[in-house]
């Protein structure tokens, strides 16, 4: 089993390095569907999204953050359509996981709704501005953002149960606090939040970036909830999905009404990711999340560099 995992990781890494080579990426870019039949690209996208769904769940990252840089670099689709599909992928993943997390008390509406309100407004503007910018510039910025996310993932420590915090005036005004039953600790955990205003400001920024690049923003939502505002990790992850679904919906409509949603691409990506996420959730106990997380960070760095190079026309 250990050997299989190592072989699998080596295959993923070596495959990523091969894909980073300009010749391979240019081969994809030079084929707007000409050399390969359209249905082959669609099938490849479905299979890719399926495996991405498995990896994303095991690594604890959203699908969108991996989907957009990789698909925009290695598939022949324009980045407008990839960003729109990425948003729908992130949205559907969050919707799929949302109901059980809300029922179990992990996802908290009182915490999520004010942040989603701020983030959704900025995600609309992010999407509008992103669609106005030249594709090469967006690709370049995407590369920088993706490498930044990889660095954030390496640097950020997660705190399963942050120290009890003194609620600030905003959190008291909105009565943001909660209790959930932690199945690992086998006890009820109560929590409060602080630094609500700063957290809200950061959600504006995160919403903008998510809308502009079509990324699900779990990579940023979780550290802000958990490390800045003092929310327990499980509540942070669950509520992040709630915020993401609302922000994603707002930005997705901008893309849809701008003609950037191609169902031919978006639906296989969404369905592949949803199926993969289910398998990933089933496989989760069998894998060591830290090892997979390391592979995902490596893939993010490679995809970010490839995106940077593509943006620079290299």
């Amino acid at each position, binding site marked *: 089993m250990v050997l299989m995992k190592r072989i699998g990781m080596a295959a993923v890494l070596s495959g990523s390095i091969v894909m980073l080579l300009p010749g391979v990426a240019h081969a994809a*870019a030079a084929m*707007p569907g*000409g050399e390969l039949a*359209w*249905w082959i690209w*669609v099938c490849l996208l479905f299979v890719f999204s399926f495996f991405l769904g498995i990896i994303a769940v095991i690594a604890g990252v959203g699908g969108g953050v991996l989907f957009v840089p990789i698909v925009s670099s290695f598939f*022949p689709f*324009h980045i*407008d*359509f990839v960003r*729109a599909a990425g948003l*729908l992928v992130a*949205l*559907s993943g969050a*919707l*799929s996981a*949302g*109901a*059980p997390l*809300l*029922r*179990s*008390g992990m996802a*908290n*509406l*009182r915490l999520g*709704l*004010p942040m*989603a*309100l701020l983030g*959704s407004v900025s995600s*609309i503007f992010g999407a*509008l501005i992103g669609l106005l910018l030249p*594709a090469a510039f967006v690709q370049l910025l995407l590369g920088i953002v993706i490498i930044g996310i990889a660095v954030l993932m390496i640097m950020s420590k997660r705190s399963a149960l942050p120290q009890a915090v003194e609620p600030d005036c905003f959190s008291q005004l909105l*009565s*943001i606090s*909660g209790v*959930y*039953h932690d199945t690992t600790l086998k006890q009820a955990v*109560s929590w409060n939040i602080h630094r609500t205003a700063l957290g809200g400001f950061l959600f504006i920024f995160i919403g903008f970036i998510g809308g502009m690049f079509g990324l699900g923003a779990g990579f940023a939502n979780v550290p802000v909830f958990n490390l800045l505002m003092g929310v327990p990790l499980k509540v942070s992850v669950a509520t992040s999905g709630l915020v993401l679904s*609302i922000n*994603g*919906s*707002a*930005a*997705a*409509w*901008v893309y*849809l*009404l*701008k*003609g*950037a949603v*191609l*169902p*031919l*691409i978006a*639906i*296989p990506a969404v*369905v592949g990711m949803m199926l993969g996420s289910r398998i990933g959730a089933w496989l989760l106990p069998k894998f060591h999340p830290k090892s997979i997380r390391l592979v995902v960070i490596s893939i993010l760095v490679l995809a970010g560099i490839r995106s940077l190079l593509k943006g620079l026309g290299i």
Partner: protein
Amino acid sequence: MKHNPSTGHGADVEKAYARVLERVSWAGVLASVVAYTFYVLHLLPLSVSVESIAGHWHLGADELVARGIVPSGWEWVAYLPSADMLSLAALAILSLTPVAALVVASAAFLRRKDYGYVLISLVQIVVLAVAVSGVFTR
């Protein structure tokens, strides 16, 4: 500090939100799969052929709109029930899931007389409605 009515696992507002989220999102996914099957197998007429889309998917959205290959704004509704636009409609349903859930949540907050969160939910619905209306995308 005020009593927080949303404590304890699975409070009633969260449960109501979850119920709608689950139903509408699954309806959207199911509709997407059915419409997509009709689309790629040509079981219904298309507004634009799959080959035409695939031949131009390396171009930006603006370019495709300018060439009349994809509709902008709410023009796509006029092409229903072509299979490609049915697929787009299914994705639109999926994207509207949070709106439906927020409507139910705002009613649940109202029953609790939690007016602050009624306001937040309603403003959120307005923000999403503005995005859906296409005011900013004209």
